[in-house]
């Protein structure tokens, strides 16, 4: 019986339990459901939970522990002689072959099985015929181990099915016995749902913990070879070239230029996205006919769905050269000398293109939030003789502000985390500059390029990616803490 079958059976028991619970509840009060604490459906759900939840938890636990036990037992079947000469990792590999054989043996019929047990040399072509490819390193003892493995697996499945289905039935009965008119079934069921909700919200915390944990050890290794002050306060990013005065250092890992580039590009992007997005949202929520809105809004949302690599190419082949040539023209008109003051790859190009990508993030979220401001607010303002724009600027936007700020924060986050557009539109040169017409780069770009490069993976040059990741993580964390504080301070609740 496969796990899916077991789950299906448990679910069927649960479904029966639902009906039985509801029926039992009705019976207890002789049909007068008003006497029940909760609606019969809740009693049904109560049984459903009793019948399925413990059983499924058991199934999960069993399924994660049993293979370990089986594996240990199969390992015990490895002949002493083999065990003596093989290292633990080699044994792992042998077990892998055993498993492949075990899979293959199941495909054989009685006669072939007889043949197969004779030896690995015979088995290999036999299985190859069945489309099971075996590696060359097999040995004869593995066949016995494989049979043992199959036997263990078979018993395991039987016991697992019995235990899980048994527990399900026990739960079913236990639940049914508890049913009284006064049983607070709704509260119990809601308790379980509540627990589920709590569990769901811990995912966010677990993710954070996971992220920190997955980066911390490598970051530690990085900092053991590069002093933190050099990383955090260094103003030169040139990881492969040591400072001329200090030939021992592995390179120069100054965070400042990357950070400056990140914030600068994100700032330019927000400068593009916020006005366009906010005005678009306002137009759609306040002025546009519902028809126009229903067409324009999803169309704008398409912008958010276009993969960033497409934007990257767009920046590279269209926007960048356009800006460069444009600046050439302008310079030509102004000074008579045609020299482009905007590089094809620049903070401006990246910011502009990224801004376009971010427009729907601002507009869609803001549009929903603005539409949610109650009508009476609009009436109040319009009734005083305010124009629509005054109403929007002075009443609706302030009322929607916390939500809009939330949307903007989300957008800013995206801007800070964006990689592909920057790689293509702003380049990878880590420079410290305030000229938006020149290339700069961002932390994320460097994370990707250091991780996917050809440099030595044990060197600080690669490890720095983890330090960068963790640093970025904590910087955005600080920003978000601050943002939360701001939103809290200015939050005004309507209605």
């Amino acid at each position, binding site marked *: 019986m496969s796990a899916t079958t077991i789950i299906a059976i448990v679910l069927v028991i649960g479904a029966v339990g639902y009906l039985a619970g509801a029926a039992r509840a009705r019976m207890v009060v002789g049909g007068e459901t008003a006497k029940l604490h909760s609606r019969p459906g809740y009693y049904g759900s109560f049984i459903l939970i009793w019948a399925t939840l413990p059983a499924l938890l058991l199934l999960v636990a069993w399924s994660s522990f049993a293979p370990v036990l089986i594996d240990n037992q199969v390992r015990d079947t490895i002949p002493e002689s083999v065990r003596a000469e093989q290292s633990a990792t080699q044994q792992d590999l042998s077990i892998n*072959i055993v498993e492949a054989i075990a899979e293959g043996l199941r495909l054989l019929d009685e006669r072939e099985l007889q043949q197969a047990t004779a030896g690995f040399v015979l088995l290999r072509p036999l299985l190859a015929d069945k489309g099971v*490819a075996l*590696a060359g390193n097999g040995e004869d003892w593995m066949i016995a181990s494989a049979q043992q493995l199959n036997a263990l697996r078979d018993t395991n499945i039987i016991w697992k099915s019995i235990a899980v289905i048994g527990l399900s039935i026990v739960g079913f009965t236990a639940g049914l016995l508890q049913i009284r008119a006064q049983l607070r079934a709704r509260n119990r069921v809601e308790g379980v749902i509540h627990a589920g909700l709590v569990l769901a919200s811990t995912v966010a915390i677990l993710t954070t913990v996971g992220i920190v944990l997955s980066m911390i050890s490598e970051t530690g290794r990085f900092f053991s070879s590069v002093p933190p002050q050099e990383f955090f306060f260094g103003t030169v990013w*040139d990881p492969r070239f040591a400072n001329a005065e200090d030939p021992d250092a592995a390179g120069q890992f100054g965070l400042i230029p990357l950070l400056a580039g990140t914030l600068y590009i994100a700032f330019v992007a927000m400068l593009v996205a916020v006005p366009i997005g906010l005005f678009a949202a306002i137009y759609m929520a306040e002025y546009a006919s519902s028809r126009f809105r229903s067409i324009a809004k999803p169309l704008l949302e398409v912008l958010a769905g276009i993969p960033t690599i497409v934007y990257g190419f767009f920046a590279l082949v269209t926007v960048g050269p356009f800006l460069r040539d444009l600046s050439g023209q302008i310079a030509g008109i102004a000074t008579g000398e045609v020299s482009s003051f905007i590089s094809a790859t620049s903070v401006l190009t990246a910011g502009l293109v990224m801004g376009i990508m971010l427009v729907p993030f601002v507009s869609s979220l803001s549009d929903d939030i603005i539409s949610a401001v109650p009508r009476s607010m609009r009436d109040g303002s319009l009734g005083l003789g305010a124009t629509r724009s005054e109403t929007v600027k002075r009443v609706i936007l302030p009322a929607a502000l916390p939500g809009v700020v939330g949307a903007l924060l989300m957008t800013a986050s995206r801007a800070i985390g964006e990689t592909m557009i920057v790689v293509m539109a702003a380049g990878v040169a880590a420079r410290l500059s305030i000229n938006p017409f020149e290339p700069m780069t961002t932390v994320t770009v460097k994370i990707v390029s250091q991780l996917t490069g050809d440099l030595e993976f044990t060197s600080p040059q690669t490890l720095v990616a983890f330090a960068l990741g963790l640093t970025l993580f904590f910087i955005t964390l600080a920003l978000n803490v601050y943002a939360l504080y701001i939103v809290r301070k200015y939050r005004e609740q309507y209605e």
Partner: protein
Amino acid sequence: RDQVSVAGSSTVLPYATIVAENFGETFPDFPTPIVESGGSSGGLKEFCRGVGTEFIDIANASRAIRDSEVASCAEAGVTEIQEIRIGYDGIVFASDINGPDFALEPIHMYQALAAQIVVDGELVDNPNETWADVNPDFPDWEIAAYIPGEKHGTREVFEEKVLLVGCEAAGDLQARMDAGMDEDTAEENCYAVRKDGKSVDIDGDYTETLARIDANKEGMGVFGLAFYENNTDKLKVATMSGVTPTTESIAAGEYPVSRPLFFYVKKAHLGVIPGLKEYVEFFISDAMTGPDSPLAEYGLVAAPDEEREATRASFAAGETL
């Protein structure tokens, strides 16, 4: 797991996929190997995580594995690593097809791109603005070079085989050492690339470099030979030290800028992962990596006959690092 799992260098990736695809077609019993991209570093890192079916079998690399990496591998139990050299990657300089011919020497690249050069005995920030400043025969283009970013292995080759050579040729290396730098520092100083925007690092792949040259017709880009050969109608290749880069001239060792490509195999996996041994053998067969093979057609510079023979022998003998 029943298919071979490969990860690593994006330079080797196209070759590895051609082999994998042909392998799948030639050996219908084995599933087509999975070839991941992710850089030599990422590939070797995965490779060195450990031995077992949950770990990859082969790491592609556009450089040789480093000692520290071998050590790190060994720590995780990956002790027996077989190194396989598949051929060479030529690195060429090319500009727009409609531009003039360039007859480059390393010294030109050095003088155009180094952060600092020696002028009148003084080490100064590179003053050259146009190619004509470097060599009056060159067009009066503003210098704009698209070179591989520091993450690329190609960059290292470019530095060592072009910039450093140019530096020496110009006598600048000596001048630096005379000025009191020790040799290592002087060398590093030679191939430090200017950061005033005249030289642009490309962290993406060659299509990006091509797009940049499309956008700036006066740009000069660094490409792999294979990529150039697929785009001969758009690019004009420059000669280096008077040699035009071709598979022949590189194989013959005439063209100076090239590098070997590798992959590394876990010996412990050879008998365990179905098809792994066959894949490696197929890869190093003449049918795949010989002079008339699909890889060569794609742009890989095949290793000389005796080198290929040696590789095969070494693999068959199970030699490890």
